[in-house]
Protein backbone atom coordinates (compact mmCIF):
# COMPACT_ATOMS: atom_id res chain seq x y z
CA UNK A 1 0.00 0.00 0.00
CA UNK A 2 2.12 2.87 -1.30
CA UNK A 3 0.78 6.37 -1.50
CA UNK A 4 3.76 8.70 -1.70
CA UNK A 5 1.83 11.52 -3.35
CA UNK A 6 -0.81 11.78 -0.67
CA UNK A 7 1.56 11.50 2.25
CA UNK A 8 2.43 15.16 2.96
CA UNK A 9 -1.20 16.12 2.53
CA UNK A 10 -2.20 13.50 5.03
CA UNK A 11 0.43 14.54 7.56
CA UNK A 12 -0.61 18.11 7.06
CA UNK A 13 -4.26 17.34 7.69
CA UNK A 14 -3.48 15.40 10.82
CA UNK A 15 -1.63 18.32 12.36
CA UNK A 16 -3.17 21.29 10.54
CA UNK A 17 -0.52 23.99 10.67
CA UNK A 18 1.12 22.83 13.85
CA UNK A 19 4.13 21.59 11.87
CA UNK A 20 5.21 25.16 11.36
CA UNK A 21 5.79 25.33 15.11
CA UNK A 22 8.14 22.37 15.20
CA UNK A 23 11.15 24.28 13.95
CA UNK A 24 10.41 27.18 16.30
CA UNK A 25 12.28 25.98 19.43
CA UNK A 26 15.41 25.37 17.37
CA UNK A 27 15.03 28.75 15.67
CA UNK A 28 14.52 30.60 18.94
CA UNK A 29 17.53 28.97 20.56
CA UNK A 30 19.69 29.50 17.51
CA UNK A 31 18.42 33.00 16.89
CA UNK A 32 19.11 34.15 20.41
CA UNK A 33 22.48 32.50 21.04
CA UNK A 34 23.94 32.53 17.53
CA UNK A 35 22.30 34.87 15.01
CA UNK A 36 21.77 37.71 17.49
CA UNK A 37 25.41 37.77 18.68
CA UNK A 38 26.54 37.38 15.07
CA UNK A 39 24.67 40.48 13.93
CA UNK A 40 25.66 42.32 17.09
CA UNK A 41 29.26 41.34 16.41
CA UNK A 42 29.04 42.85 12.93
CA UNK A 43 27.80 46.10 14.50
CA UNK A 44 30.44 46.03 17.26
CA UNK A 45 33.18 45.49 14.68
CA UNK A 46 32.37 48.96 13.38
CA UNK A 47 32.75 50.60 16.80
CA UNK A 48 35.56 51.47 19.19
CA UNK A 49 33.83 49.73 22.11
CA UNK A 50 36.18 48.86 24.98
CA UNK A 51 33.75 46.61 26.81
CA UNK A 52 32.68 49.14 29.43
CA UNK A 53 31.94 52.67 28.22
CA UNK A 54 29.63 53.68 25.42
CA UNK A 55 30.53 52.52 21.93
CA UNK A 56 30.87 54.98 19.10
CA UNK A 57 30.81 54.24 15.40
CA UNK A 58 34.22 54.27 13.72
CA UNK A 59 33.38 52.79 10.33
CA UNK A 60 35.96 50.37 8.97
CA UNK A 61 38.73 51.72 11.18
CA UNK A 62 39.10 48.40 13.07
CA UNK A 63 39.73 46.56 9.82
CA UNK A 64 42.25 49.17 8.73
CA UNK A 65 43.96 48.81 12.12
CA UNK A 66 43.96 45.05 11.71
CA UNK A 67 45.81 45.14 8.43
CA UNK A 68 48.29 47.63 9.86
CA UNK A 69 48.99 45.61 13.00
CA UNK A 70 52.09 43.44 12.43
CA UNK A 71 51.06 41.17 15.32
CA UNK A 72 47.64 40.57 13.74
CA UNK A 73 49.15 39.77 10.35
CA UNK A 74 51.68 37.52 12.00
CA UNK A 75 48.83 35.68 13.72
CA UNK A 76 47.08 35.23 10.37
CA UNK A 77 50.26 33.65 9.05
CA UNK A 78 50.53 31.35 12.11
CA UNK A 79 46.88 30.33 11.82
CA UNK A 80 47.21 29.58 8.11
CA UNK A 81 50.52 27.74 8.55
CA UNK A 82 48.99 25.66 11.34
CA UNK A 83 46.08 24.71 9.08
CA UNK A 84 48.36 24.06 6.08
CA UNK A 85 50.40 21.69 8.23
CA UNK A 86 47.55 20.04 10.12
CA UNK A 87 44.85 19.43 7.53
CA UNK A 88 46.96 17.61 4.87
CA UNK A 89 48.89 15.58 7.47
CA UNK A 90 45.67 14.58 9.24
CA UNK A 91 44.18 13.36 5.97
CA UNK A 92 47.34 11.62 4.85
CA UNK A 93 47.88 9.78 8.14
CA UNK A 94 44.15 9.23 8.65
CA UNK A 95 43.92 7.50 5.28
CA UNK A 96 47.11 5.50 5.83
CA UNK A 97 45.89 4.39 9.29
CA UNK A 98 42.51 3.43 7.85
CA UNK A 99 44.09 1.41 5.04
CA UNK A 100 46.25 -0.52 7.51
CA UNK A 101 43.46 -1.09 10.02
CA UNK A 102 41.02 -2.16 7.31
CA UNK A 103 42.96 -5.41 7.10
CA UNK A 104 41.78 -8.27 9.24
CA UNK A 105 44.15 -9.41 11.96
CA UNK A 106 43.95 -10.21 15.63
CA UNK A 107 44.09 -7.15 17.84
CA UNK A 108 42.80 -4.86 15.12
CA UNK A 109 39.99 -3.49 17.27
CA UNK A 110 42.36 -2.87 20.15
CA UNK A 111 44.64 -0.81 17.92
CA UNK A 112 41.65 1.13 16.56
CA UNK A 113 40.53 1.89 20.11
CA UNK A 114 43.96 3.06 21.22
CA UNK A 115 44.43 5.21 18.12
CA UNK A 116 41.05 6.82 18.69
CA UNK A 117 41.56 7.39 22.41
CA UNK A 118 43.49 10.72 22.18
CA UNK A 119 40.61 12.30 20.25
CA UNK A 120 38.30 11.64 23.21
CA UNK A 121 40.34 13.75 25.58
CA UNK A 122 40.07 17.52 25.81
CA UNK A 123 42.77 19.12 23.62
CA UNK A 124 43.64 21.24 26.64
CA UNK A 125 44.49 18.22 28.80
CA UNK A 126 46.25 16.64 25.84
CA UNK A 127 48.36 19.77 25.49
CA UNK A 128 49.44 19.47 29.12
CA UNK A 129 50.37 15.82 28.65
CA UNK A 130 52.63 16.81 25.77
CA UNK A 131 54.09 19.55 27.88
CA UNK A 132 55.29 16.87 30.33
CA UNK A 133 56.97 15.11 27.44
CA UNK A 134 58.46 18.04 25.56
CA UNK A 135 59.52 20.44 28.31
CA UNK A 136 63.31 20.85 28.50
CA UNK A 137 65.16 19.52 31.58
CA UNK A 138 62.29 17.61 33.17
CA UNK A 139 60.43 16.59 30.03
CA UNK A 140 60.51 12.87 29.30
CA UNK A 141 61.60 13.15 25.68
CA UNK A 142 64.33 15.63 26.61
CA UNK A 143 65.62 13.28 29.31
CA UNK A 144 65.64 10.31 26.97
CA UNK A 145 67.29 12.31 24.19
CA UNK A 146 70.06 13.57 26.46
CA UNK A 147 70.68 10.14 27.92
CA UNK A 148 71.19 8.83 24.38
CA UNK A 149 73.28 11.79 23.32
CA UNK A 150 74.33 14.50 25.83
CA UNK A 151 74.63 16.99 22.97
CA UNK A 152 70.83 17.33 23.08
CA UNK A 153 70.96 19.07 26.45
CA UNK A 154 70.82 22.50 24.83
CA UNK A 155 67.76 21.53 22.78
CA UNK A 156 64.37 22.99 23.46
CA UNK A 157 61.59 22.10 21.05
CA UNK A 158 59.33 24.91 22.26
CA UNK A 159 61.88 27.75 22.49
CA UNK A 160 61.86 28.88 18.85
CA UNK A 161 58.58 29.96 17.24
CA UNK A 162 59.11 27.81 14.12
CA UNK A 163 59.98 24.69 16.10
CA UNK A 164 57.09 25.30 18.48
CA UNK A 165 54.67 25.59 15.58
CA UNK A 166 55.89 22.29 14.15
CA UNK A 167 55.41 20.68 17.57
CA UNK A 168 51.88 22.10 17.82
CA UNK A 169 50.99 20.74 14.39
CA UNK A 170 52.39 17.31 15.22
CA UNK A 171 50.54 17.18 18.55
CA UNK A 172 47.31 18.15 16.81
CA UNK A 173 47.82 15.52 14.11
CA UNK A 174 48.71 12.92 16.73
CA UNK A 175 45.54 13.70 18.69
CA UNK A 176 43.02 13.74 15.83
CA UNK A 177 44.40 11.13 13.43
CA UNK A 178 41.94 8.65 14.97
CA UNK A 179 39.03 10.89 14.10
CA UNK A 180 39.96 11.17 10.41
CA UNK A 181 40.79 7.45 10.41
CA UNK A 182 37.28 6.51 11.58
CA UNK A 183 35.70 8.53 8.78
CA UNK A 184 38.01 6.91 6.19
CA UNK A 185 37.32 3.45 7.63
CA UNK A 186 33.60 4.03 7.26
CA UNK A 187 34.19 5.12 3.68
CA UNK A 188 36.32 2.06 2.94
CA UNK A 189 33.71 -0.26 4.40
CA UNK A 190 31.03 1.26 2.18
CA UNK A 191 32.95 0.08 -0.90
CA UNK A 192 31.56 -3.33 -1.84
CA UNK A 193 34.03 -6.19 -1.84
CA UNK A 194 32.85 -7.16 -5.35
CA UNK A 195 34.37 -3.99 -6.77
CA UNK A 196 37.70 -4.82 -5.15
CA UNK A 197 37.54 -8.43 -6.28
CA UNK A 198 36.78 -7.32 -9.83
CA UNK A 199 39.93 -5.21 -9.76
CA UNK A 200 41.95 -8.19 -8.57
CA UNK A 201 40.54 -10.35 -11.38
CA UNK A 202 41.49 -7.66 -13.88
CA UNK A 203 45.02 -7.96 -12.55
CA UNK A 204 45.21 -4.59 -10.77
CA UNK A 205 47.74 -4.39 -7.96
CA UNK A 206 47.04 -2.97 -4.51
CA UNK A 207 48.20 0.56 -5.26
CA UNK A 208 46.57 0.61 -8.69
CA UNK A 209 43.24 -0.36 -7.13
CA UNK A 210 43.79 2.25 -4.44
CA UNK A 211 44.52 5.04 -6.85
CA UNK A 212 41.99 4.35 -9.58
CA UNK A 213 39.08 2.81 -7.69
CA UNK A 214 39.17 3.38 -3.94
CA UNK A 215 40.34 7.00 -3.78
CA UNK A 216 37.81 8.31 -6.32
CA UNK A 217 35.00 6.65 -4.34
CA UNK A 218 36.30 8.09 -1.07
CA UNK A 219 36.64 11.56 -2.59
CA UNK A 220 32.96 12.45 -2.52
CA UNK A 221 32.31 11.13 0.97
CA UNK A 222 35.14 10.67 3.47
CA UNK A 223 37.70 13.03 1.96
CA UNK A 224 35.13 15.81 1.68
CA UNK A 225 34.00 15.47 5.30
CA UNK A 226 37.54 15.28 6.62
CA UNK A 227 38.88 18.16 4.57
CA UNK A 228 36.02 20.50 5.48
CA UNK A 229 36.02 19.67 9.21
CA UNK A 230 39.82 19.86 9.36
CA UNK A 231 39.88 23.25 7.66
CA UNK A 232 37.31 24.70 10.06
CA UNK A 233 38.86 23.04 13.11
CA UNK A 234 42.48 23.92 12.42
CA UNK A 235 41.83 27.52 11.39
CA UNK A 236 40.03 28.16 14.68
CA UNK A 237 42.64 26.33 16.80
CA UNK A 238 42.72 27.49 20.42
CA UNK A 239 43.03 24.87 23.17
CA UNK A 240 46.17 23.00 22.20
CA UNK A 241 48.15 26.21 21.76
CA UNK A 242 46.89 27.59 25.08
CA UNK A 243 48.05 24.45 26.86
CA UNK A 244 51.43 24.00 25.19
CA UNK A 245 52.84 27.45 24.48
CA UNK A 246 50.12 29.98 25.45
CA UNK A 247 50.91 31.50 22.07
CA UNK A 248 54.56 31.98 22.99
CA UNK A 249 57.45 32.48 22.86
CA UNK A 250 56.31 36.12 22.80
CA UNK A 251 53.40 35.82 20.42
CA UNK A 252 55.36 33.49 18.13
CA UNK A 253 52.67 30.78 18.03
CA UNK A 254 49.62 32.92 18.70
CA UNK A 255 46.63 31.94 16.55
CA UNK A 256 43.89 34.35 15.56
CA UNK A 257 41.41 32.89 18.03
CA UNK A 258 43.84 33.48 20.91
CA UNK A 259 44.44 37.01 19.61
CA UNK A 260 40.66 37.57 19.62
CA UNK A 261 40.42 36.50 23.26
CA UNK A 262 43.36 38.68 24.32
CA UNK A 263 42.04 41.72 22.49
CA UNK A 264 38.60 41.22 24.00
CA UNK A 265 40.00 41.06 27.54
CA UNK A 266 42.45 43.83 26.71
CA UNK A 267 39.47 46.23 26.38
CA UNK A 268 39.68 46.28 22.57
CA UNK A 269 36.29 44.58 22.39
CA UNK A 270 35.09 46.29 19.20
CA UNK A 271 38.38 45.53 17.51
CA UNK A 272 38.31 41.89 18.60
CA UNK A 273 34.91 41.36 16.92
CA UNK A 274 36.40 42.81 13.73
CA UNK A 275 39.22 40.25 13.99
CA UNK A 276 36.59 37.53 14.45
CA UNK A 277 34.95 38.55 11.19
CA UNK A 278 38.31 38.44 9.43
CA UNK A 279 38.80 34.94 10.81
CA UNK A 280 35.36 33.98 9.48
CA UNK A 281 36.38 35.06 5.97
CA UNK A 282 39.67 33.17 6.33
CA UNK A 283 37.68 30.03 7.17
CA UNK A 284 35.01 30.59 4.54
CA UNK A 285 37.31 30.98 1.52
CA UNK A 286 39.02 27.56 1.68
CA UNK A 287 35.75 25.86 2.68
CA UNK A 288 33.92 27.29 -0.34
CA UNK A 289 36.85 26.50 -2.64
CA UNK A 290 37.00 22.89 -1.50
CA UNK A 291 33.20 22.51 -1.66
CA UNK A 292 33.41 23.73 -5.25
CA UNK A 293 36.27 21.35 -5.96
CA UNK A 294 34.37 18.36 -4.56
CA UNK A 295 31.27 19.32 -6.51
CA UNK A 296 33.16 19.36 -9.81
CA UNK A 297 34.98 16.15 -8.86
CA UNK A 298 31.60 14.49 -8.29
CA UNK A 299 30.41 15.53 -11.71
CA UNK A 300 33.50 14.05 -13.31
CA UNK A 301 33.17 10.79 -11.42
Amino acid at each position, binding site marked *: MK*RPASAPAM*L*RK*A*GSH*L*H*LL*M*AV*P*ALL*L*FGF*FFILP*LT*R*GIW*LSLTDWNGVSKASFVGLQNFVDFFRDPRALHDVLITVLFALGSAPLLNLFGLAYAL*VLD*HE*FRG*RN*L*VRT*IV*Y*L*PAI*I*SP*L*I*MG*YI*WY*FILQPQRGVLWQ*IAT*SVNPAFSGGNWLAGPRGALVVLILVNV*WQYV*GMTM*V*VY*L*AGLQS*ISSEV*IEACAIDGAGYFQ*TLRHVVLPILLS*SSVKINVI*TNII*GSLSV*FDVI*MALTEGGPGYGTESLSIYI*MRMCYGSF*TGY*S*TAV*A*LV*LFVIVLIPVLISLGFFRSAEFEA
Partner: protein
Amino acid sequence: MKRRNSVLVRAAAALMGITSAVPFIVLLRIALSTPAGMSSGRALAVPEFQIANFARAWELSRMGVAIMNSLAITASALVTLVVCAAAAGYAIARFPGKFHLAVLNVFLFSMMIPGIINTVPLYTLMRRIGGINSRWAMALVLAANALPFSVFLYANFIKSMSREIEESAIVDGCTWFSAFWRITFPLLKPVTAAVVIVNGLGIWNNYAQAVFFLQKPAVRTIPLAVSMFFQQYGARWNMMAAAATIGAAPAVAVFILFQKQFIKGLASGALKG
Protein backbone atom coordinates in the same frame (compact mmCIF):
# COMPACT_ATOMS: atom_id res chain seq x y z
CA MET B 1 40.88 -3.54 0.43
CA LYS B 2 41.97 -6.57 2.36
CA ARG B 3 45.21 -8.45 2.15
CA ARG B 4 45.47 -10.81 5.05
CA ASN B 5 48.29 -11.77 7.39
CA SER B 6 50.90 -9.46 6.08
CA VAL B 7 53.68 -8.99 8.59
CA LEU B 8 54.09 -5.44 7.37
CA VAL B 9 50.49 -4.61 8.25
CA ARG B 10 50.88 -5.95 11.76
CA ALA B 11 54.10 -4.07 12.30
CA ALA B 12 52.54 -0.82 11.08
CA ALA B 13 49.49 -1.36 13.29
CA ALA B 14 51.69 -2.04 16.31
CA LEU B 15 53.64 1.14 15.65
CA MET B 16 50.40 3.14 15.41
CA GLY B 17 49.11 1.70 18.66
CA ILE B 18 52.35 2.40 20.49
CA THR B 19 52.56 5.96 19.14
CA SER B 20 49.08 6.68 20.42
CA ALA B 21 49.55 4.94 23.76
CA VAL B 22 52.94 6.33 24.87
CA PRO B 23 51.76 9.76 26.07
CA PHE B 24 49.14 8.07 28.27
CA ILE B 25 51.76 5.84 29.80
CA VAL B 26 53.97 8.86 30.45
CA LEU B 27 51.03 10.63 32.08
CA LEU B 28 50.33 7.72 34.43
CA ARG B 29 54.01 7.31 35.18
CA ILE B 30 54.27 10.95 36.29
CA ALA B 31 50.95 10.88 38.13
CA LEU B 32 52.20 7.95 40.22
CA SER B 33 55.63 9.35 41.02
CA THR B 34 56.91 11.09 44.14
CA PRO B 35 57.81 14.81 43.81
CA ALA B 36 61.47 13.85 43.33
CA GLY B 37 60.60 10.99 40.98
CA MET B 38 60.26 13.12 37.89
CA SER B 39 63.22 15.38 38.39
CA SER B 40 65.92 15.53 35.77
CA GLY B 41 67.51 12.23 34.86
CA ARG B 42 64.83 10.08 36.47
CA ALA B 43 62.51 9.57 33.49
CA LEU B 44 63.91 6.12 32.80
CA ALA B 45 64.14 5.06 36.45
CA VAL B 46 61.94 2.38 37.99
CA PRO B 47 58.29 3.56 38.10
CA GLU B 48 56.84 4.50 41.47
CA PHE B 49 53.29 3.86 42.64
CA GLN B 50 52.10 6.77 44.75
CA ILE B 51 48.37 6.04 44.51
CA ALA B 52 47.81 8.69 47.20
CA ASN B 53 48.67 11.37 44.60
CA PHE B 54 45.22 10.95 43.11
CA ALA B 55 43.42 11.59 46.40
CA ARG B 56 45.55 14.67 47.06
CA ALA B 57 45.08 16.05 43.51
CA TRP B 58 41.33 15.37 43.71
CA GLU B 59 41.14 17.46 46.86
CA LEU B 60 43.39 20.30 45.71
CA SER B 61 41.85 20.67 42.26
CA ARG B 62 38.24 20.36 43.53
CA MET B 63 37.69 18.05 40.59
CA GLY B 64 34.49 16.61 42.14
CA VAL B 65 32.65 19.91 41.69
CA ALA B 66 34.05 20.28 38.18
CA ILE B 67 32.91 16.80 37.13
CA MET B 68 29.39 17.49 38.43
CA ASN B 69 29.32 20.81 36.54
CA SER B 70 30.55 19.16 33.33
CA LEU B 71 27.90 16.45 33.73
CA ALA B 72 25.09 18.95 34.38
CA ILE B 73 26.06 21.21 31.46
CA THR B 74 26.64 18.36 29.00
CA ALA B 75 23.40 16.56 29.93
CA SER B 76 21.18 19.64 29.74
CA ALA B 77 22.82 20.84 26.53
CA LEU B 78 22.33 17.43 24.89
CA VAL B 79 18.68 17.07 25.94
CA THR B 80 17.91 20.57 24.61
CA LEU B 81 19.86 19.85 21.44
CA VAL B 82 18.19 16.51 20.68
CA VAL B 83 14.63 17.79 21.29
CA CYS B 84 15.09 20.98 19.25
CA ALA B 85 17.10 19.40 16.42
CA ALA B 86 14.84 16.34 16.03
CA ALA B 87 11.69 18.48 15.89
CA ALA B 88 13.21 20.93 13.43
CA GLY B 89 14.71 18.17 11.31
CA TYR B 90 11.34 16.42 11.17
CA ALA B 91 9.54 19.60 10.11
CA ILE B 92 12.15 20.27 7.41
CA ALA B 93 12.09 16.72 6.07
CA ARG B 94 8.32 16.16 6.10
CA PHE B 95 6.91 19.58 5.30
CA PRO B 96 9.25 21.04 2.71
CA GLY B 97 7.71 24.48 2.27
CA LYS B 98 9.42 27.81 1.69
CA PHE B 99 9.71 28.51 5.41
CA HIS B 100 11.46 25.24 6.19
CA LEU B 101 13.74 25.53 3.19
CA ALA B 102 14.85 28.92 4.52
CA VAL B 103 15.39 27.42 7.97
CA LEU B 104 17.52 24.65 6.49
CA ASN B 105 19.60 27.13 4.52
CA VAL B 106 20.25 29.25 7.59
CA PHE B 107 21.54 26.17 9.41
CA LEU B 108 23.59 24.96 6.45
CA PHE B 109 25.31 28.30 6.13
CA SER B 110 25.95 28.54 9.86
CA MET B 111 27.75 25.19 9.80
CA MET B 112 30.67 27.00 8.25
CA ILE B 113 30.94 29.53 11.10
CA PRO B 114 33.31 28.42 13.88
CA GLY B 115 31.88 29.07 17.35
CA ILE B 116 34.85 31.16 18.44
CA ILE B 117 33.81 33.96 16.08
CA ASN B 118 30.66 34.60 18.09
CA THR B 119 32.27 34.46 21.48
CA VAL B 120 32.92 38.15 22.09
CA PRO B 121 29.47 39.53 21.18
CA LEU B 122 27.99 36.54 22.96
CA TYR B 123 29.94 37.51 26.04
CA THR B 124 28.36 40.97 26.07
CA LEU B 125 24.94 39.41 25.54
CA MET B 126 25.50 36.96 28.37
CA ARG B 127 26.53 39.75 30.70
CA ARG B 128 23.30 41.56 29.95
CA ILE B 129 21.07 38.55 30.63
CA GLY B 130 23.03 37.43 33.70
CA GLY B 131 24.35 34.42 31.82
CA ILE B 132 27.94 34.67 33.04
CA ASN B 133 28.66 31.96 35.62
CA SER B 134 25.33 30.29 34.81
CA ARG B 135 25.44 26.62 33.94
CA TRP B 136 22.08 26.94 32.21
CA ALA B 137 23.16 29.73 29.92
CA MET B 138 26.36 27.84 29.10
CA ALA B 139 24.37 24.70 28.23
CA LEU B 140 22.05 26.70 25.96
CA VAL B 141 24.98 28.37 24.19
CA LEU B 142 26.65 25.04 23.53
CA ALA B 143 23.37 23.48 22.37
CA ALA B 144 22.81 26.40 20.00
CA ASN B 145 26.32 26.03 18.58
CA ALA B 146 25.70 22.35 17.89
CA LEU B 147 22.26 22.86 16.30
CA PRO B 148 23.15 23.36 12.60
CA PHE B 149 24.94 20.05 12.12
CA SER B 150 22.39 18.16 14.23
CA VAL B 151 19.34 19.57 12.41
CA PHE B 152 21.02 18.66 9.15
CA LEU B 153 21.66 15.08 10.32
CA TYR B 154 18.06 14.61 11.51
CA ALA B 155 16.55 16.13 8.37
CA ASN B 156 18.65 13.88 6.11
CA PHE B 157 17.85 10.78 8.11
CA ILE B 158 14.10 11.45 8.33
CA LYS B 159 13.95 12.10 4.56
CA SER B 160 15.32 8.62 3.97
CA MET B 161 12.73 7.02 6.30
CA SER B 162 9.50 5.59 5.00
CA ARG B 163 6.37 7.52 5.86
CA GLU B 164 4.10 4.51 5.92
CA ILE B 165 4.25 3.66 9.60
CA GLU B 166 3.55 7.25 10.54
CA GLU B 167 0.65 7.39 8.11
CA SER B 168 -0.94 4.24 9.33
CA ALA B 169 -0.72 5.60 12.87
CA ILE B 170 -2.58 8.69 11.70
CA VAL B 171 -5.17 6.55 9.91
CA ASP B 172 -5.65 4.75 13.19
CA GLY B 173 -6.53 8.05 14.81
CA CYS B 174 -3.21 9.28 16.14
CA THR B 175 -2.64 13.01 15.91
CA TRP B 176 0.24 14.03 13.73
CA PHE B 177 2.27 15.15 16.74
CA SER B 178 1.87 11.92 18.66
CA ALA B 179 2.70 10.05 15.46
CA PHE B 180 6.00 11.91 15.45
CA TRP B 181 6.63 11.49 19.14
CA ARG B 182 5.59 7.85 19.55
CA ILE B 183 6.41 6.36 16.16
CA THR B 184 9.09 8.41 14.44
CA PHE B 185 11.21 9.64 17.32
CA PRO B 186 12.07 6.14 18.64
CA LEU B 187 13.15 5.18 15.10
CA LEU B 188 15.64 8.03 15.11
CA LYS B 189 17.91 6.26 17.58
CA PRO B 190 20.89 5.91 15.18
CA VAL B 191 20.96 9.64 14.39
CA THR B 192 20.29 10.55 18.00
CA ALA B 193 23.27 8.42 18.97
CA ALA B 194 25.44 10.17 16.37
CA VAL B 195 24.27 13.61 17.49
CA VAL B 196 24.83 12.81 21.17
CA ILE B 197 28.29 11.31 20.60
CA VAL B 198 29.70 13.87 18.18
CA ASN B 199 28.39 16.90 20.05
CA GLY B 200 28.60 15.41 23.53
CA LEU B 201 32.34 15.08 23.14
CA GLY B 202 32.74 18.67 21.96
CA ILE B 203 30.50 20.00 24.73
CA TRP B 204 32.20 17.94 27.42
CA ASN B 205 35.64 19.13 26.34
CA ASN B 206 34.68 22.72 25.58
CA TYR B 207 37.26 25.22 26.74
CA ALA B 208 37.22 28.15 24.29
CA GLN B 209 33.74 29.28 25.36
CA ALA B 210 33.88 28.07 28.95
CA VAL B 211 36.92 30.23 29.66
CA PHE B 212 34.77 33.29 28.89
CA PHE B 213 31.45 32.34 30.46
CA LEU B 214 32.34 30.28 33.54
CA GLN B 215 34.64 32.19 35.84
CA LYS B 216 33.61 31.32 39.41
CA PRO B 217 35.19 28.20 40.91
CA ALA B 218 31.70 26.92 41.79
CA VAL B 219 30.64 26.60 38.13
CA ARG B 220 33.95 25.47 36.62
CA THR B 221 33.97 22.52 34.22
CA ILE B 222 36.74 19.93 33.97
CA PRO B 223 38.94 21.69 31.37
CA LEU B 224 38.75 24.91 33.42
CA ALA B 225 39.53 23.14 36.68
CA VAL B 226 42.53 21.42 35.10
CA SER B 227 43.89 24.64 33.59
CA MET B 228 43.39 26.53 36.89
CA PHE B 229 45.16 23.76 38.75
CA PHE B 230 48.06 23.93 36.31
CA GLN B 231 48.44 27.64 36.90
CA GLN B 232 48.49 27.12 40.68
CA TYR B 233 50.63 24.02 40.97
CA GLY B 234 52.80 24.45 37.88
CA ALA B 235 55.93 23.00 39.43
CA ARG B 236 54.38 19.93 41.05
CA TRP B 237 54.26 17.66 38.06
CA ASN B 238 53.02 14.60 39.87
CA MET B 239 50.01 16.53 41.21
CA MET B 240 49.39 18.10 37.81
CA ALA B 241 49.53 14.75 36.07
CA ALA B 242 47.23 13.18 38.65
CA ALA B 243 44.71 16.00 38.17
CA ALA B 244 44.92 15.64 34.38
CA THR B 245 44.38 11.88 34.71
CA ILE B 246 41.28 12.43 36.84
CA GLY B 247 40.03 15.03 34.38
CA ALA B 248 40.49 12.69 31.43
CA ALA B 249 39.13 9.58 33.16
CA PRO B 250 35.34 10.06 32.77
CA ALA B 251 35.54 10.50 28.98
CA VAL B 252 37.93 7.57 28.61
CA ALA B 253 35.68 5.35 30.76
CA VAL B 254 32.56 6.23 28.75
CA PHE B 255 34.46 5.68 25.50
CA ILE B 256 35.72 2.26 26.50
CA LEU B 257 32.26 1.20 27.73
CA PHE B 258 30.43 2.38 24.61
CA GLN B 259 33.21 1.91 22.05
CA LYS B 260 31.11 0.26 19.36
CA GLN B 261 28.35 2.87 19.50
CA PHE B 262 30.97 5.60 19.58
CA ILE B 263 32.76 4.56 16.42
CA LYS B 264 29.52 3.72 14.65
CA GLY B 265 27.90 6.99 15.66
CA LEU B 266 30.91 9.03 14.60
CA ALA B 267 31.21 7.27 11.27
CA SER B 268 27.51 7.47 10.42
CA GLY B 269 27.35 11.05 11.62
CA ALA B 270 30.26 11.96 9.44
CA LEU B 271 29.18 10.13 6.32
CA LYS B 272 25.61 11.39 6.44
CA GLY B 273 26.96 14.91 6.73
